[in-house]
């Protein structure tokens, strides 16, 4: 290909990539989300800058230089970076599909996307930490040139990590179980490289040497980087080339699966049918399934922390926080988009009498059923005397009788369809109302309980929550009907919204 054409194509593809970021569906109809994400980025940037400044003081006067401590802990920085990429970095194969039929060589596209992945601004985000830290720690030993070597060295490590992530992300897209491999590798490196033998912390000392080499502009370090990055790049290139076909062929590879009749739900009549629908929607739709798995994992993680760890025993606020969250997190995470999945077939539901009411009831019973999990987990801290059974019962009933009625109100206001089988990041989610309601549903119960504990005692707090929760739970047919009535009043606007966002 001629150079002028290479330049033209690179410019066009780069321009399109910038537009793609700017016009992300998540931001398109939601300025609040856009502003919130900027605030979120700014918060972390400021936080990292402050951390960078204070980290130097923290390590000052220790046996090693401050930068050695940071460089030696490189594996931790890279693990955090690896995990954070799941929410933002897509694979080139997902984007190349749109160019596949145009007169642009696939190889060129792959190189462009891979190169831009290495050069993406996110790889520089940690500079908010390393620049202030490096400015205080490096020049006194290696001068300003050394400081630049330090910053570039760390940037290159993040570039490497982005290719390393891409490799596994592509495989994870094919099969979720691949996630175990990089996590095991990181764990093995951290264990054998740092913790296994105090006398021979080869990973710790190795990364220190490497980064010192970058500070001294040692050609060997740059060579090591090249020796790692080139094969990694080439492996990614090969893998992405195959992944493009996998991505395009997704619609062809329709899996055959066994249909389960779930006859055990037949005894519940119409509600049972909608419970089946809810279960099938959770099992069969990628987005709903991911929401449910993420919520369940959060719930399990909090439950485990609550049950098996004593780190929060001395902090009453955190104890309340975790106890309440164990019960509420799954419900809040999945019900924030209540009715949004049904937006795909809302017209079909609306032509039958009171379908939506039965559906809402089924959703409520399903969520109540899921509360068994944190209830079981809470047995452990109850037996150990960390919390009373009254507190656990209070959290359980408050969730089913106060938090759920509150978050279910979103069924009236949600009017954006979520695409059932697309990635969560590709669906335009989270309106202002959703953000406010889910925030309130997460924080209000905790504040209520904390205030009650502070002003009275644990017992009064638990009893109050039991009374409020019991009332809401018993009255669920009434508040669900009220939500249904209000939903019907807004039905034309909601259906319009659902149709427009399909």
């Amino acid at each position, binding site marked *: 290909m001629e150079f002028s054409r290479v330049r*033209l194509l690179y410019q066009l593809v780069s321009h399109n990539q910038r537009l*793609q970021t700017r016009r992300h569906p998540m931001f398109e109809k939601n300025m609040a989300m856009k502003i919130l994400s900027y605030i979120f980025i700014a918060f972390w940037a400021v936080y990292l800058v402050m951390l960078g400044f204070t980290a130097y003081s923290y390590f000052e006067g220790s046996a090693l230089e401050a930068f050695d401590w940071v460089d030696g802990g490189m594996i931790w920085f890279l693990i955090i970076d690896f995990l954070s990429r799941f929410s933002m970095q897509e694979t080139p194969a997902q984007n190349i599909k749109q160019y596949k*039929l145009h007169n642009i060589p696939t190889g060129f596209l792959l190189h462009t996307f891979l190169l831009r992945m290495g050069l993406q601004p996110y790889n520089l985000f940690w500079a908010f930490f390393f620049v202030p830290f490096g400015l205080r720690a490096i020049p006194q030993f290696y001068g300003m040139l050394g400081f630049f070597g330090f910053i570039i060295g760390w940037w290159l490590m993040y570039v490497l990590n982005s290719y390393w992530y891409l490799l596994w992300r592509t495989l994870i897209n094919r099969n979720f179980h691949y996630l175990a491999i990089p996590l095991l590798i990181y764990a093995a490196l951290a264990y054998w490289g740092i913790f296994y033998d105090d006398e021979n912390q080869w990973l710790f000392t190795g990364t220190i040497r490497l980064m010192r080499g970058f500070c001294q502009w040692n050609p060997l370090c740059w060579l090591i980087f090249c020796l790692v990055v080139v094969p990694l790049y080439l492996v990614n290139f090969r893998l992405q080339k195959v992944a493009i076909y996998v991505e395009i062929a997704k619609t062809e590879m329709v899996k*055959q699966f066994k249909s389960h009749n779930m006859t055990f739900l037949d005894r519940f009549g119409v509600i049972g049918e909608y419970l089946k629908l809810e279960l099938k929607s959770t099992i069969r739709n990628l987005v709903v399934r991911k929401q449910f798995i993420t919520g369940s994992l959060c719930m399990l993680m909090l439950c485990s922390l609550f049950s098996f760890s004593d780190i929060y025993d001395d902090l009453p606020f955190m104890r309340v926080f975790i106890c309440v969250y164990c019960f509420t997190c799954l419900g809040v995470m999945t019900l924030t988009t209540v009715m949004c999945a049904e937006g795909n077939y809302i017209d079909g539901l609306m032509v039958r009498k009171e379908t939506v009411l039965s559906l809402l009831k089924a959703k409520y019973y399903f969520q109540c059923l899921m509360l068994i999990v944190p209830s079981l987990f809470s047995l452990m801290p109850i037996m150990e005397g960390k919390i009373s059974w009254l507190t656990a019962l209070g959290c359980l009933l408050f969730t089913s009788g106060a938090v759920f009625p509150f978050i279910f109100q979103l069924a009236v206001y949600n009017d954006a369809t979520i695409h059932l089988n697309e990635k969560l990041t590709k669906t335009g989610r989270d309106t202002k109302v959703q953000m406010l309601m889910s925030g309130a549903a997460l924080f209000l119960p905790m504040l209520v309980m904390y205030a009650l504990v502070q002003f009275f005692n644990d017992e009064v707090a638990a009893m109050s929550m039991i009374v409020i929760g019991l009332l809401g739970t018993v009255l669920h047919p009434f508040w669900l009907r009220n939500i249904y009535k209000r939903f019907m009043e807004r039905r034309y606007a909601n259906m319009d919204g659902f149709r427009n966002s399909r």
Partner: protein
Amino acid sequence: MNLTIEKLTKSFGEKQALNIDHYAIHSGETIGLVGNNGAGKTTLFRIILDLLHADTGCVTIDGVVDGQPVSCDTSKSEAWKAYTGAFVDTGFLIDYLTPEEYFRFIAKISGISDAVMHDRLLQFDGFMNGEILGQKTLIRNLSMGNKQKVGIIGAMLHYPKLLILDEPFNFLDPTSQLAMKYLLETYSKEQKATIIVSSHNLTHTLDICSRITLLEHGIILKDYDRDYAMLNSEIEEYFRGQQSGKN
């Protein structure tokens, strides 16, 4: 352009989706690919366009472009993309662009100046029916019918010598369907291009195609040359036979 298929097979698991021993399309022909759902039409298009690997066999495109003879196996070289236009489904559109931006992008990668692009877009004016340009809307926010139109225009904008359209009449209103027919007929005459369309709309397919290929369970059952009256009755008879077989 000529298109030749040799010993092409493709299976998904145990199900054979395609099994074509030999099939040739000659320069200037307008081919209508018809068949029931699951007949293998889209799979065939995807293999022709190198969107899917065939288990065996190959697809070759050859002919004369700008006075130069060209020939390539679509799975081994990408040279065919320069003289081929295709629309398979809306998933291939760059949907975060506006239609104008999308057309400009195609024009630029095809070496077409802005002025020529505007001239060419004028030819699609009737087809666009005032619903595509100047709407200040991203492609992803257009209706399915309008997305379909953007895809079809995008495939034709660089005047390809081989045009492949999968179900082009889908989602189009009756006026647009007629405009689409006119567009294809005119394009075939003016550009002397080879056109391959698949469709469930037998009437439209019979109207515009010089040859009809009937595909069923991945196998070419019949290959009809154009004789409208005979074609119509034979094809209708075939599908009626399929229906009564099911009943």
